[in-house]
């Protein structure tokens, strides 16, 4: 694509954004995070590779559907050339319009996924029609799983699923809207994220089921304490 085309595409995209923001009240820009989450905060989108990953599916789908439409149209044209000419424009529309919509939807989907992590909490927002936000504290995490499909491996991304002890979803409810799973799609640093979350879970003294921290606190060391103790040991070693 030439530069001019690229720039105009960007303007059109921004126009669509503005329309969504004003008419459908899609929040613009980074999410409003809990104030208690402010220290050490990292806010990020999925990896750019996730965009390429979705686009790969898009191009394959486009190819299949458009080839099918073309074959269908050619068949009609060969049977009856007037009907073929009449159907040329609708067929072209059916072939092209959904592609454009899907392409824009992929970009919108990418831009509306937000993750935020700090050393105490995890926040995920996604969605255009229904906007879902999910906030948990790392203290409540039960397990973290990393999933990689074959195509995802090809693109070097992974999906991190973080589960709390909350209820899993019932019938007819989307797992994103309600549920105990926090799904982070398209991360290219999945192992780092998993390590960050799990290190927190490992040092936690509770079972993550609402145990009273104030009580278990007095007996145990918190991660910050351990870090300090290590620093003290190193200092003493150096003193000898």
């Amino acid at each position: 694509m030439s530069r001019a085309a690229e720039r105009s595409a960007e303007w059109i995209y921004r126009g669509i954004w503005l329309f969504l923001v004003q008419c459908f009240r899609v929040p613009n820009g980074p999410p409003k995070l809990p104030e208690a989450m402010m220290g050490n905060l990292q806010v990020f989108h999925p990896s750019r590779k996730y965009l390429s990953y979705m686009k790969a599916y898009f191009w394959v789908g486009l190819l299949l559907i458009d080839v099918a439409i073309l074959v269908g149209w050619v068949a009609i044209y060969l049977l009856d050339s007037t009907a073929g000419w009449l159907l040329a424009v609708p067929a072209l529309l059916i072939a092209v319009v959904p592609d454009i919509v899907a392409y824009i939807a992929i970009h919108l989907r990418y831009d509306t996924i937000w993750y935020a992590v700090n050393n105490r909490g995890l926040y995920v927002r996604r969605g255009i029609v229904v906007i879902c936000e999910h906030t948990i504290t790392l203290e409540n995490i039960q397990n973290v799983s990393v999933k990689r499909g074959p195509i995802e491996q090809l693109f070097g991304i992974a999906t991190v699923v973080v589960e709390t002890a909350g209820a899993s979803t019932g019938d007819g409810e989307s797992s994103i809207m309600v549920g105990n799973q926090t799904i982070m799609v398209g991360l290219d640093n999945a192992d780092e994220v998993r390590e960050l979350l799990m290190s927190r879970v490992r040092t936690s003294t509770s079972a993550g089921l609402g145990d009273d921290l104030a009580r278990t606190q007095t007996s145990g060391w918190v991660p910050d304490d351990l870090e300090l103790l290590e620093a003290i040991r190193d200092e003493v070693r150096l003193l000898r």
Partner: protein
Amino acid sequence: MNVDESKSDQPDPTPLDPESITRPDDALLVYYFIISLLAVVAFPIVFVPLFIRFKTMRYRFDESGVSMCWGFFFRREIYLTYGRLQDIHVTRNILERWMGLAKIPIQTASGSSGATMRIEGIRDPEPLRDFLYSQMRGAKAATDSEGAATQLLRDIRDELRGLREEREAAK
């Protein structure tokens, strides 16, 4: 809920007082009405229970937990403590966003499917979400680096580091 609106007008909003939330916003009834209209013929069947739900819905936030009750023929009450919260969601569909409403389904570690409590009809959900989050286990907690023991350890480290640096300088 004029409380939130008046607060957002102030330049420096004071933290939300959750105890002031006792009823869903009036716009929730309009929302229920519209979604009942989608049922066309079944409108009365859908709307009447929702109307009763709206009319009887009460929230009570206190210092340790939240309770919610609704229903006239079938009364339901839910009690839970903040410390046992597991997940906080905030969901808004297009209609709710147009009307400025939000749902906050929250969950404890119970095994039942779906949300434990569905706080509905909240205008401006962020302050309430922030409040719930800050009350959740592990959100700030005594484990913070401000604990007395941690401070003591930090002092010891700094003293030792000073001592070492002095010795190194003397060499």
